[in-house]
């Protein structure tokens, strides 16, 4: 099981305060049609989901639209989430990333975005001031792991994940064969997995 740092300010135990529910148990309630639980889940995770979507799409209004679709899908498919084997935050972020990618590839959005940012801006600025300690720790952890990759692996992974480019597009952007991109992505991700200590 991956140890994702999914705590936020709310999960710190405060004496006398009502125990804060895990994202997994909130999802379980959402699956039963509990709108109050959905509201709480939203409050605690929306900035994360929107942050990721906006990282890929750049445009704020479009990102809100896509993030809203993500949450509607969470509502719709919470019944399919298997609390016993999944991490709720990971499930939600995977959905968010896929939706953002779908949007960027299916529309003018990708083109517009490419005109607004240069390729060199794709990699996130891990040094920016973060809102919470947890997120700063998370940044530090990912940054350290990313540092272990070769520059070429880092570049390919950033273009794919944060830039939303397909492996074919990455190959075109870097003028290298698709097979080379596939290898860089896989070797890089395996290295990251090992650095981050992820096991399933």
């Amino acid at each position: 099981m991956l140890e994702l740092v999914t705590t936020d300010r709310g999960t710190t135990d405060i004496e006398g305060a009502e125990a804060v529910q895990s994202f997994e148990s909130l999802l379980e309630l959402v699956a039963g049609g509990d709108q109050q639980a959905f509201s709480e889940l939203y409050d605690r995770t929306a900035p994360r989901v929107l942050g990721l979507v906006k990282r890929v799409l750049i445009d704020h209004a479009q990102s809100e639209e896509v993030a809203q679709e993500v949450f509607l899908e969470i509502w719709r498919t919470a019944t399919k989430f298997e609390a016993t084997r999944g991490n709720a935050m990971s499930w939600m972020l995977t959905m968010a990333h896929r939706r953002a990618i779908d949007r960027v590839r299916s529309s003018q959005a990708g083109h517009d975005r490419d005109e607004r940012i240069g390729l060199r801006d794709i990699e996130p600025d891990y040094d920016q001031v973060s809102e919470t300690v947890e997120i700063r720790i998370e940044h530090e952890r990912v940054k350290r792991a990313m540092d272990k990759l070769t520059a070429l692996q880092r570049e390919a992974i950033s273009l794919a994940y944060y830039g939303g480019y397909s492996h074919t597009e990455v190959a075109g952007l870097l003028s290298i064969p698709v097979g080379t991109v596939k290898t860089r992505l896989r070797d890089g991700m395996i290295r990251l997995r090992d650095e981050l200590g992820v096991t399933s």
Partner: protein
Amino acid sequence: MTERHDDSDPRLLTGAYSLDALSPEEAEAFEREAASSESLRDETDELTLTSTVLGLAVAPVTPSDRMKAELMAKLPLTPQLPRETPLSASETPETSSAEQVPDAPAASIAEPPASSGAAHQRAQSRWFTRPVGILTAVAAAAALFVGGGFVGSAVINANTTTTTIDASASQLAAITAADDVQRKVVDVADGGKATLVWSNDLGRSAVLVDGLSGLPDGKVYEAWYINGDGAIPAGTFTASSDGMTWHVLSGAMKSGDAIGVTVEPAGGSTAPTTTPILVGQSA
């Protein structure tokens, strides 16, 4: 570390798949391969989990209040997938929306299109004092009553300030998130559907219409609470330019009040002057 460049080896695609870097066709083909190979599946799961750590490292962005309000408004309109194995689901206030939908239109009182004649006006003016039970029939009749004014001209949203939208958005969120929230789907005169949501605990309600037609200059929609005392004005609103129109009714709602919407002159009226485009009774 593999340096194979054999494009036909699906194992080479685990990294690209975990980063959503495959085309939909490639991803589908990959999933078929993974379904029959446990080791391929394990590697894919691990790398996908790893990719979400990349997602967690992104700086959070605070969404607008409006985003939540719209989302909460859409929940009652979005059915959830059934569970694979039936569990004892926690209580849901609305188990069957079908039985709450008003009876199918049975009315045949086809009014001629509005000529706004005085007699016509008089005939329409007191619909709200009739027993609530027949209001649905009136609404059904109103469905046949499509005045020229409804022809979708430019949508007006000019006189609503952003502050008003945000305030009303958080009120809507409060209603839809209330423990005792209830909803009802009713017909709209132009053939669409509206959703009424209310909370008796809060004494508040809202009406939501997807794709409500815009009105010509000088006309607004006005909401009403209707009960034994007649119709009480509950605020005016215009159609939203981006799909979902909602209005949080002003004033307090009592359980059993009917909620109605009419078209009124700009500024609103103190009593309805036209037939409602939608009516539904709360419980």
